[in-house]
């Protein structure tokens, strides 16, 4: 059966997934770094190596994400919104609402039964609901973004942030720390602040069950838990949320075939 590769060139990281039908043979993630063009090729090759597959064996290429246009050899390019939808739909056909927490933007999407996007809302010109918020806070706390989730779950009383601005929340966090707030309460507070912004996107697009969270933010158990509490429904998370769009791209290109 033919192989398809989906590449998601995001503003933060680039991801590649090698698929055979709906099965994932391998995947790779690299920081997007200087040139999207080179990164796209490198991340694809890394994924192909893992799967022990030669470039020649790939019959379909799909690209998505901020740098999708930088993948000249793609048979199909689509926005990460459609690709997240398609990816989530293949993993969880029952999902009608997808929340993607990306590096710069967060999105809420509504899906139909075929996994097509019927409506979507992106966060406003404010990074308060985006992964950037987590990066800034992690940097300030001298921890890795990956550690934030577990840390947050330990929190007893989350700090209530009074600003939505990620940049200023950072300095507010600095003050709270100095006032004796615990790191876990800071990150839990950040999660609450982010979740409320993200949930507003969901309210605007209109919540329909089931609901899934994808994107880098979905790796953050604390954030996912908080979002779930805020919208009051159980949220599903793909096993590797960061590669959802790349996977979705590979699914789309297979569904459509080469135009």
């Amino acid at each position: 059966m033919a192989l398809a590769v989906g590449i998601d060139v995001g503003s933060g990281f680039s991801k590649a997934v090698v698929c055979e039908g709906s099965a994932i043979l391998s995947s790779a993630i690299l920081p997007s770094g200087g040139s999207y063009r080179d990164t796209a090729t490198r991340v694809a090759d890394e994924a192909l190596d893992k799967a022990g597959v030669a470039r020649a064996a790939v019959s379909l290429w799909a690209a998505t994400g901020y740098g999708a246009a930088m993948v000249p050899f793609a048979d199909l390019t689509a926005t990460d919104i459609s690709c997240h939808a398609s990816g989530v739909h293949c993993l969880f056909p029952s999902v009608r609402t997808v929340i993607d927490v990306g590096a710069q933007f967060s999105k809420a999407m509504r899906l139909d039964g075929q996994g097509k996007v019927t409506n979507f809302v992106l966060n406003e010109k404010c990074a308060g609901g985006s992964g950037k918020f987590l990066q800034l806070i992690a940097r300030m706390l001298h921890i890795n973004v990956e550690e934030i989730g577990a840390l947050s779950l330990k929190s007893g009383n989350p700090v209530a942030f009074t600003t939505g601005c990620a940049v200023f929340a950072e300095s507010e966090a600095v003050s709270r720390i100095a006032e004796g707030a615990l790191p876990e309460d800071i990150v839990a507070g950040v999660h609450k602040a982010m979740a409320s912004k993200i949930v507003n996107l969901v309210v605007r697009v209109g919540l329909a069950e089931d609901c899934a969270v994808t994107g880098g933010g979905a790796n953050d158990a604390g954030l996912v838990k908080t979002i779930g509490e805020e919208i009051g429904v159980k949220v599903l998370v793909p096993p590797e949320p960061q590669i959802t769009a790349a996977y979705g791209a590979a699914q789309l290109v297979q569904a459509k075939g080469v135009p």
Partner: protein
Amino acid sequence: MGPGQIRGRAMAQTESRGLSRADRYYTLYGSRARELKRAGIPVIGYLSALCPVEILTAAGVVPLRLKGNMSEAITKADAHMETIVCPFVRNVFDAAIKGQYEYLDGMVMPHQCDSMDRTSDVWSYNLNLPYWHFLNFPHTTDNPSLEFTREILRIFIATLERFTGKKITRDALNAAIQSHNRNRSAMRLLYSFRKADPPLISGTEMMKVLVAAMSLPVDESTALIEEVAGEVGQRKGGSAKGASRIMLVGDQIDDAAIPETIEGTGACLVMDDLSIGSKMYWQDVDATDDPIEGIAERYLRKLKLPTTYVSTGDTYQENLKARFGHMVRYIDEYKVNGVVLLVYKYCDPYGFEVPAAKSFIESSGTPVLYIEDEYSLSSLARVKTRIEAFLEMIAP
């Protein structure tokens, strides 16, 4: 900054009954209205100094001016209301849809500014209260405008009558006007205690009284103000003379955190030109044969919010006097030596005034610190530094 601790200090000062009641009404905002609601009296909330409370009082309902909370982050409002709307309006709307005002029977939204006018539907739609009225005040003050104002007040009265099922009699209106005039003069008396050096009542205490006062039925409000005035009148002038005396200018600044920030720098907040402060209390309603006349005159012509277009004066300078002259009088009466002009982001009506207001006040010899800010505690540390630098700057 840690408002908690500063607040703590302010509490310690309020050892007397009236002031601690004011503090309680401030902290548990709307608690009295809630009680009265339980007793079966309808509670009508309103925004802005433009709402003719005399009419609500005459209708036998409890008027409650809706207040924000600067320490509460806006978490739900953004799903329904743009972030380009006045941060105060967003903050109160956020509180409302979070159920903080669930006991309201209705609301009056006077036409003060675009942030209220353009979101009126958003409020009525999401709160879905039994009574809703958009009171369409004009922004001009000529005779046709006054005539029009009387008419929309009559429409307002009619909708209230329909809601309560009770006629609002001329006597009830006249009585309400008298009560509210009494209330205003009581507050003016309390203000006069701020003229002393040091003032007999701190700006933080005053803020709490002002906020408490707008959460009570008028006669209870007057009683509270008089009680506080009695207590404050007893105070001996403190020893700490010579601190900088600040006047705060802005619209709906209704959170003690602001005066706490100012007084946390060692300055005294001795006067204000706020829409919950002196703006509310300096102008009475004149007794007129038709009470609507006096009410229309007071709210349209005497109450000078920036959205009221003041055309008075043959020259621009005269016009500036008509618009801002009262502030210079306050500066003189209350021996103010620095003005803090605090305008919320996204506020067109005040935003457009800043250059004129600032230069007019400064030309009278009093320096002005202009601060544009959100309605949020988050930036107060920054604001405090500016005020401290301002004080160092104006220090002799």
